[in-house]
């Protein structure tokens, strides 16, 4: 399996799926494998702040994650399927996040829970990662500060839907994206672009 960087936006999509071309057997196998994967996602709860409390509330009795097959929280990344980053991530925690993501074996998916994990949230400061997608590849973003448990469950169900649409025939889906030779996950101009303050927030307070 080749270890590459995430595909640049300018490159054209692959003309045909790498590997086996789909047929009756592969689609039935896909259905079985995807059904199994999506209904037994073991989360790796990388809980840092307030969203972690809402995650715990989602796992507790009222909003039960057990009905999704997710009650077995695997705190060891080696045994986890989905990495749920719940909470804000400062730069000091970024290498830890990256290492835990790297330690997870394929197939793995990533849910960025909350505004801070998705974009830095209200913390546009010197110490905060402006969205974990500058550090790891994210599959589902769940907005909210913190997202309601129903919102997180909706995000998990979206991930399940995404997984059900995958196919074993496409090997590019399970590609591992490591840090490049600069030590970055995305090119620097891309990081700067997605980290820029946006919208009205910059002007409302007339701050720096």
């Amino acid at each position: 399996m080749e270890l590459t960087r995430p595909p640049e936006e300018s490159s054209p999509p692959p003309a045909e799926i790498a590997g086996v071309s789909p047929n009756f057997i592969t689609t039935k196998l896909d259905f079985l494998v995807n059904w199994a994967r999506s209904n037994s996602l073991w989360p790796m709860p990388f809980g840092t702040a307030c969203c972690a409390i809402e995650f715990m509330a989602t796992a507790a009795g009222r909003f039960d994650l057990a009905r999704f097959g997710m009650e077995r929280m695997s705190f060891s990344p080696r045994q986890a399927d989905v990495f749920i980053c719940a909470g804000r991530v400062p730069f000091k925690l970024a290498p830890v996040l990256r290492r835990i993501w790297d330690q997870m074996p394929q197939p793995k998916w990533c849910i960025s829970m909350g505004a801070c994990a998705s974009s830095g949230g209200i913390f546009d400061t010197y110490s905060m990662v402006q969205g974990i997608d500058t550090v790891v590849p994210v599959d589902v973003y769940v907005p909210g500060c913190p997202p309601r448990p129903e919102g997180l469950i909706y995000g998990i169900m979206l991930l399940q839907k995404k997984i059900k649409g995958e196919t074993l025939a496409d090997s590019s889906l399970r590609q591992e994206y490591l840090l490049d030779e600069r030590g970055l996950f995305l090119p620097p101009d891309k990081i700067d672009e997605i980290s820029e303050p946006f919208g009205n927030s910059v002007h409302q307070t007339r701050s720096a």
Partner: protein
Amino acid sequence: MSTRTVEWTLATPSVGPDGRQIRVPLGLPSPAPDGGDEFAERMLINLGPQHPATHGVLRLVLELEGERVVRCIPHIGYLHSGFEKLGEYRHYNQIIPLTDRTDYLSPMANNVGLALAAEKLMGITITERCSVLRVIACELSRIISHLVWMGTTGIDLGAFTPFLWTFYERERVYNLQEAWTGARLTTSLTRVGGMMADVPSGWNDQLRDFCRSLPKTLDEVDALFTRNAIWCGRTQGIGAIGKEEAINYSLSGPMLRASGVPYDVRKDAPYLGYDTYDFDVPVGEHGDVYDRYRVRLEEMYQSTRILEQALGRLAGLDGAPLNVSDPRVILPPKSRAMSDMEAMIFHFKQVMEGVPAPPGETYLGIENPKGELGTYFVADGTAKPVRWRIRPPSFINLACLPRLCEGALLSDVIAINASVDIVMGEIDR
């Protein structure tokens, strides 16, 4: 409910008649008194920052001699978000949503702490209804914070069921918070001079029902833990700290009171009229993990007592004004702001420029569930503070963790860490 006393005897007591822990010899030869070479093998292990039992992103570097901890060095800063820097670019009312996210287990208490400090800085006196509602907010926060503590400490020590019970009770408080403020966790309840909104109709009855049912859940957890041999064996005599040392380490809250120091900000430097409420402050004796558990459990019963009294007062304040009537500080009602020129100007000035604070500085500490939460403001006449300092109780309490873990076993480190009741959002800010 008045004070409760529990008399109990265990079949196998772990504390002897002289008050010292009874040690069962492990059958291993004790090391040579000068240290010797056979114990020169020491392991340096890393606990965290991602770990299920560290209550957040805390990294503990433990130096182990076999199973025993020689030294424990905590590393923090894995959740440092720049709150204090951010506060220098926000108006006082805009800082209130930031306080939800420092101690996210008891957000309403943080909101109250900041608003009280800002009001002290600006010289504003709040209305009585606002005081009573803020007392209710603080005590509900105390309850939910201690419920989280009990649930997660239970999990750390191997008991999963109370976690589900305590989180169910928290959901009931979340219902109350959501009905009042619109948010379950990030409440942003207070404003300088008042509150964001008054309680909706029927809320008082919901709270009364909660006050009636919470003690039953607490009784069940009490039955599971207090006389449980496993619980006592894992918590008694562990992580103890004496009175003088606790004061020297600047501990506060249940950590300080479990060591025998009867200091509670609500009693010793009262705010929000706490000196007019009838409640007791539990004070421990040995300063170990077990005493901290008993102190926090009893605090929840006492909080229920305060809530019932506050509800009684609230009933008598129906229709009383909630916010101060100063239009320079509190936004005028929207209908007036849209129709009356003067109200529109007040609205404009507050939203665009903020409420300026006179030059000066102030510190105000309140009794947060974790300890004394202090807010230190330095103002220069503008609407944004020159300095906003949060005096974080968990930060200062955690600093004595190396002292508490001296000589403890590795599994005791988990129990001691749990008993400090930390929240990393507050520690790292």
